[in-house]
């Protein structure tokens, strides 16, 4: 039976008071105060310290919840995950190497040693490595050109912006892209404001520097971390463990290296042909559902890895997930139009595209139960917090439900994604509204998966399919 998600669920979540709130005591990172900094630099460090604290709290809560949920059956797998997350967040990184092309690809690789002496390969991506593009007049011709805006930390520890022009075909592609975006931008800003119930002037998009998606600067690292946090919350195990931490004077994600490689032609043909009967079908459907939950807009064929030894998938490069969203009219399963929430940039998920080739391919029972339990945890916590449960029922609630661990984690996850600090040093109320709305929509998507056990099949304009059947030569 379909469970309803109240219209203002997000607002209720943010307003409800927990009766037994227990925040884990943890050493807080404070911005440096022993040097005099320019206001922008001070604000940047303050914001990064705030995000670091939030992420640490989320990790603690998710870890505690995992332990309490398995109190009679603490699995070695669960313990290992906790140990790995702690190591990713806190342990020094050794053997660092730049990956890929210098100046183009800012990822580094390294190793981390856990408390029990295991060596873990990791990828480190700094927040300031995100590709931001901007239009500026060329200093000689005066004509607008596309520039890459690079955030560089100088020897004095202060972050500055450098602008490097694009050349060749990239420049033409970007100019065309920017011109198209400029035409749509006004509409996007108005639509965002209306959708989130905020003033036009409060719209979060930064018009001066444009990303490759309708998301604002600094989103990439947050989204990478959040993808992993949501994976831990759902227990799907399709996103590599990812921590958010300070690295070389800025925030960075540190992600465990995943086994496997992108699907070959033959492997993809087998998945398309065998569908739910393939040995990797369970994991691929979990990744498809995760892409739906995360509003993934960049899960192309190079962005997920298959390990044939374990028949499992891992989704990498999640920086373009969980952007802003809007409501659209699409045909429902019964043929009637329904209003649903989709990301502003269209979904792009090869796993969603592959799994929708078979009508009998569904999410596995264990995963559906995880989602049901998560939904019920949050629902029961709200009822408990609002004194709407009978005393006998309230007393039977496990501690992790009474303390609202899942609810707190989910709220903090979306706060980390969308809340922004204003020039006065306080969180902008408009950004809190955005975070609350996105929590509600996440829960609606969760509900959809519980009921239908697979992502919706969306029209092409809302799911920009890669064209797998055509690439494989399987189109009639």
């Amino acid at each position, binding site marked *: 039976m379909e469970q309803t998600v109240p219209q203002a669920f997000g607002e209720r979540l943010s307003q409800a008071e927990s009766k037994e709130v227990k925040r884990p005591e943890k050493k807080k990172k404070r911005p440096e105060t022993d040097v005099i900094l320019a206001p922008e630099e001070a604000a940047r460090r303050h914001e990064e310290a705030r995000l670091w604290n939030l992420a640490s709290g989320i990790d603690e809560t998710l870890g505690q919840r995992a332990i309490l949920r398995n109190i009679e059956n603490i699995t070695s797998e669960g313990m290992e995950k906790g140990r790995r997350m702690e190591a990713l967040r806190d342990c020094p990184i050794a053997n660092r190497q730049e990956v890929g*092309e210098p100046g183009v690809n800012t990822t580094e690789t390294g190793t981390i040693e856990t408390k029990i002496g295991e060596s873990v390969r990791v990828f480190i991506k700094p927040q300031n490595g995100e590709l931001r593009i901007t239009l500026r007049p060329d200093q000689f011709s005066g004509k607008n050109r596309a520039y890459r805006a690079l955030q560089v930390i100088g020897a004095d520890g202060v972050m500055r912006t450098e602008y490097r022009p694009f050349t060749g075909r990239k420049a033409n592609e970007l100019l065309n892209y920017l011109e198209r975006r400029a035409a749509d931008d006004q509409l996007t800003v108005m639509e965002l404001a209306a959708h989130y119930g905020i003033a036009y002037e409060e719209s979060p998009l930064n018009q001066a520097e444009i990303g*490759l998606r309708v998301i604002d600067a600094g989103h990439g690292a947050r989204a990478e971390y959040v993808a992993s946090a949501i994976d831990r919350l759902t227990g799907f195990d399709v996103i590599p463990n990812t921590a958010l931490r300070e690295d070389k004077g800025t925030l960075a994600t540190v992600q465990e290296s995943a086994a496997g490689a992108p699907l070959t032609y033959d492997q993809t043909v087998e998945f398309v042909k065998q569908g739910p009967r393939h040995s990797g079908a369970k994991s691929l459907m979990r990744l498809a559902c995760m892409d739906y939950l995360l509003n993934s807009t960049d899960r192309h064929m190079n962005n997920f890895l298959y390990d044939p030894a374990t028949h499992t998938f891992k989704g990498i490069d999640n920086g373009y997930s969980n952007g802003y969203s809007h409501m659209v009219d699409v045909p429902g399963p019964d043929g009637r139009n329904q209003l649903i929430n989709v990301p502003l940039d269209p979904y792009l998920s090869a796993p969603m595209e592959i799994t929708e080739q078979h009508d009998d391919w569904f999410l596995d029972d264990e995963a559906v139960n995880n989602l049901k339990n998560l939904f019920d945890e949050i629902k029961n916590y709200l009822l408990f917090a609002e004194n709407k449960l009978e005393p006998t029922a309230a007393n039977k609630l496990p501690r992790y439900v009474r303390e609202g661990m899942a609810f707190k984690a989910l709220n903090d996850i979306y706060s980390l994604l969308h809340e922004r600090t204003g020039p006065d040093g306080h969180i902008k109320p408009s950004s809190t509204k955005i975070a609350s709305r996105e929590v509600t929509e996440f829960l609606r998507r969760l509900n959809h998966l519980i009921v239908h056990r697979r992502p919706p099949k969306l029209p092409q304009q809302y799911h920009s399919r890669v064209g797998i059947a055509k690439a494989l030569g399987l189109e009639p």
Partner: protein
Amino acid sequence: MEGLQKIYFFQIDSAGHESNPVEIGLAPDGSADLSQLPPKVGDHLRTFGVRNFTHSGQVTFKDGSYFLECLLATDNPSWRFRSTPDKKS
């Protein structure tokens, strides 16, 4: 001829070590020559291409120099591309 003429591919093993570099150059028709790549890698790139610079579509090996540029911007635990043949690990 404008644009990149060649880049280098490195396979990564489970310990993070890079293989010896494999050159990817341009064929006479201007397309990227994937013939020297390990079969599974060449197979994937030949079939699915690589994401373009604005993440709005795929670029194929037939796009030659631009395809090489887009490969340089990718990262993957199993593969790596650089414009120089020097191994890093």
